């Protein structure tokens, strides 16, 4: 047996870091004005705030403008293939549980080609954080519609308007049984930081949809909701334990009732609890924006505790070792019924 193997590095004592430390030496290659910049900024700031050592971080992505993210983080990073980041991340976290693993993905990468892996990541509840950059378009391939594009959108591949119904990432994640689901906005740094912090602290898959502006191919696609002048009236922030109130003057509230959510006076608003056994209230909220006159919920839709796959896997290994003793090659090979030839 080889015992001359170089050991893995043992627990390090990291120096405290500032935001800049998380910037890699690579030139950022996004278009000027792209919403991706502010997401990168928020993540770097958050990690500095939380003081996560760089070497314990791993960013995994697929392909797309958004998926270039790992190159710009001075951490471990894997820019993989289109749509498959969840599969890589699942293994990385399971094989190396001490890492904090983040996925950067786009609406095309994560919900078109990668929809299946996203489903299985969410249901398995791998302890990774997902940043879904939703710009309702394929950026890197120069402007085709995506699964989140609104029906009717005219793009290069839908010159007469898309006939696809859009998928709602939040509802999809709920349907997949995700344990943490949130939504935030590229231009709303404060909100993004708060949501990302909650995501970072969640144990299990934290799924965060980020409204992200593609200045080149779908500029302003969220403006009706997120434009600064209307944002407070057009969004409602889901803050655990807080009433669902919104509006510039916090003059409106949301009441969830009989499997419907409706706009009410602030005093009547439901106090938000994303950790109920049932995800139904979150589901109701996820549908709300489609009702005329209702705000778009942002913030934390869902946050529950549930066993994670990566931990489950490792526990089984420990249990097997505890029960059968650490596997010995000799025993393995020399198992079964044998006979001798002299």
């Amino acid at each position: 047996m080889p015992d001359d193997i170089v050991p893995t590095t043992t627990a390090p004592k990291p120096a405290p870091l500032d935001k800049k430390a998380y910037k890699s030496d690579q030139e950022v290659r996004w278009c000027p004005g792209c919403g991706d910049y502010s997401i990168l900024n928020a993540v770097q700031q958050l990690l500095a705030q939380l003081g996560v050592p760089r070497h314990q971080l791993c960013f995994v992505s697929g392909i797309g403008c958004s998926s270039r993210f790992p190159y710009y983080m001075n951490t471990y990073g894997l820019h993989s293939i289109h749509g498959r980041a969840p599969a890589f991340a699942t293994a990385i976290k399971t094989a190396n549980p001490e890492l904090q693993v983040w996925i950067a993905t786009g609406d095309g990468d994560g919900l078109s080609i990668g929809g299946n892996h996203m489903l299985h990541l969410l249901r398995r509840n791998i302890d990774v954080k997902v940043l879904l950059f939703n710009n309702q378009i394929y950026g890197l391939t120069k402007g085709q519609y995506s699964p989140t594009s609104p029906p009717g959108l005219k793009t290069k591949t839908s010159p007469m308007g898309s006939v696809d119904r859009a998928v709602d990432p939040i509802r999809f994640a709920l349907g997949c049984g995700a344990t943490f689901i949130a939504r935030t906005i590229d231009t709303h740094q404060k909100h993004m930081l708060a949501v990302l912090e909650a995501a970072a602290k969640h144990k299990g898959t934290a799924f965060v949809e980020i409204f992200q502006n593609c200045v080149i191919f779908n500029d302003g696609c969220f403006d009706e909701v997120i434009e600064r002048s209307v944002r407070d009236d057009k969004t409602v922030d889901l803050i655990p334990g807080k009433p669902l109130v919104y509006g510039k003057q916090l003059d409106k509230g949301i009441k969830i009732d009989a499997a419907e959510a409706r706009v009410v006076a602030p005093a009547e608003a439901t106090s938000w609890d994303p950790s109920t056994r049932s995800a139904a209230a979150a589901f109701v909220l996820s549908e709300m924006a489609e009702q005329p006159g209702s705000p778009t919920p942002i913030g934390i839709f869902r946050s529950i505790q549930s066993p994670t796959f990566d931990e489950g896997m490792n526990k089984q290994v420990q249990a097997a070792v505890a029960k059968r003793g650490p596997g010995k090659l000799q025993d393995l090979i020399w198992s079964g019924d044998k006979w001798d030839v002299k």
Partner: protein
Amino acid sequence: MPQSTSELPLQLIDSVVIRFAGDSGDGMQITGSQFTHTAALFGNDLATFPDFPAEIRAPAGTQPGVSGFQIRFASSDIHTPGDAPDVLVAMNPAALAVNIKDLKPGGIVIVNTGQFGDSDLAKARLTSNPLKDHSLDAYRVIEIDINKRVIEALAGSTLSPKEVQRCKNFYTLGLMYWLYNRDMEPTLKWLAEKFAKEPAMVEANQKALRAGFNAGDIQELFQGRFEVPKCDVLPPGTYRNIMGNQALSMGLVAGAELAGLKIFIGSYPITPASPILESLAGYKQFGVLSMQAEDEIAAVCAAIGGSYAGHLGVTSTSGPGLALKQEGIGLAIAIELPLVIVNVQRGGPSTGLPTKTEQADLLQAIFGRNSEAWLPVIACATPSDSFDCAVEACRIAVQYMTPVILLSDGYIANGSEPWRLPKLEELKSFPARFRTEVENFLPYDRNADLARPWVKPGTVGLEHRVGGLEKAHLTGHISYDAENHEFMVNMRAAKVMKVRDSIPTPKVEGPARGEVLLLGWGSTYGSIWGAQEMLAEQGIEVARMHLRHVWPLPHGLDEIFARYKTVLVPEMNLGQLVRVLRGEFPQRNFVSYPKVQGLPFRVHELVAKVKSLLGR
């Protein structure tokens, strides 16, 4: 340890081929395995060949529903499960109809007449009863109403009539034990363990087994019994019987241990590769992390993720699954991480013949990815060789930081043979080295093997990014530079070719020069060896050579090929290795001998081919 004191003469013979055939619900695979087990413990050399339909329980009594298990056991060193059975056990008309054409002329056919009613004949789509229409005149037919015998034997049992009938296979097995003078003990023991929770089942099956055995004695079905002595010509050592998938799984565990790594296997079930995932899922005490992924793409990506994280990434599949993994394999080539991709080949194209064997994924393995995406490919020759090949695949993957495709096939995967157990000291370790030194770290620097450094994420100070965009030499930064691209394309290919420096030139068996070199790869190994022996018996000396490393090809082949007028390459495909060989050795003369029937080559076929080539 002959158990019976039968009066009948005991005739010594060197080798016997038995085929058990019945419905997929008749337990033929178990019957065959038990006979195999007993023969192995007795010390015979042996080879097995199970053959079953793609359905779980194909309709009872129909020809497509027939499941077969062939075993050859011998006192000499044998290499195949035999061209033609000496004995056919046919549990119903369909089994008889499907298999009779393979039986040796004059061979014994044991027929369960209890299943030969009109409706049985109809299910098998037979218009006349072969037991009556003289179509079996060339064989020695033994008719037994096994249905009835079992009912009699189990009279008084608490089992339902249906359950009673399920014991038929052990009656048959008992009869065969009697005929070949075998010890029933191992099977009696196995039954006791297998049905430990159902004592009635243990009793019934044991009774049926004994009844079958006794029937031989009492009912004067046969004129004599046979004895196949122990095989003493195998190299000395401790042996066990092993199936290909089993050996391969153990080899992966051994390979990982020899590298000082833990396995991460990401896999998706597919026939005939599923047992590899299943075995590894049972080796958790070795630290194996086994993930049943949502599909083959996730499986290979997870395996790569495992390697990225510092485990030995493994994924196992069969042909269609390999096609799905190719994009991911391309990434593993680009980011240069170890990875073992096991491909247990089956009949195709598309879903094809999922439970049959074929060797037609060779070109897909070597060339089936976008762009110049080179990797080493190695192939198992026999069930037990799968252990060594799995270890070798791990070695190459780790030493060269490269994905490796390991080819097996349905014939090897499900077949079995005695395996001389290696001593741990015989296994050479190849410890993986994880880079930890921060100084002068360059992610795409290379060592003498042209391998780049492997860094476990979590290592302080070595944070870096990898990905599928072309990488600059040394720094690993994204580079669209023309010269760098060409340099890297050549470098990756050169690294794969470098594997040749660590592998031996395969040995030629037989004349060092001459008319014909029989060249094989994969599971044609046994048939080719058998053919060489049979030819030698007929006074025709040909050479043979077997390739374990099918890409890159070992050093020294050209000189060898030059010494033969013809290099004859039998393959269970339309000549794929021949294409590879012609690409590499344009001056040499390769003749392809293709067979694509979902079945291995028979020794006779090869012998005939060589003779026709030699004009004899």
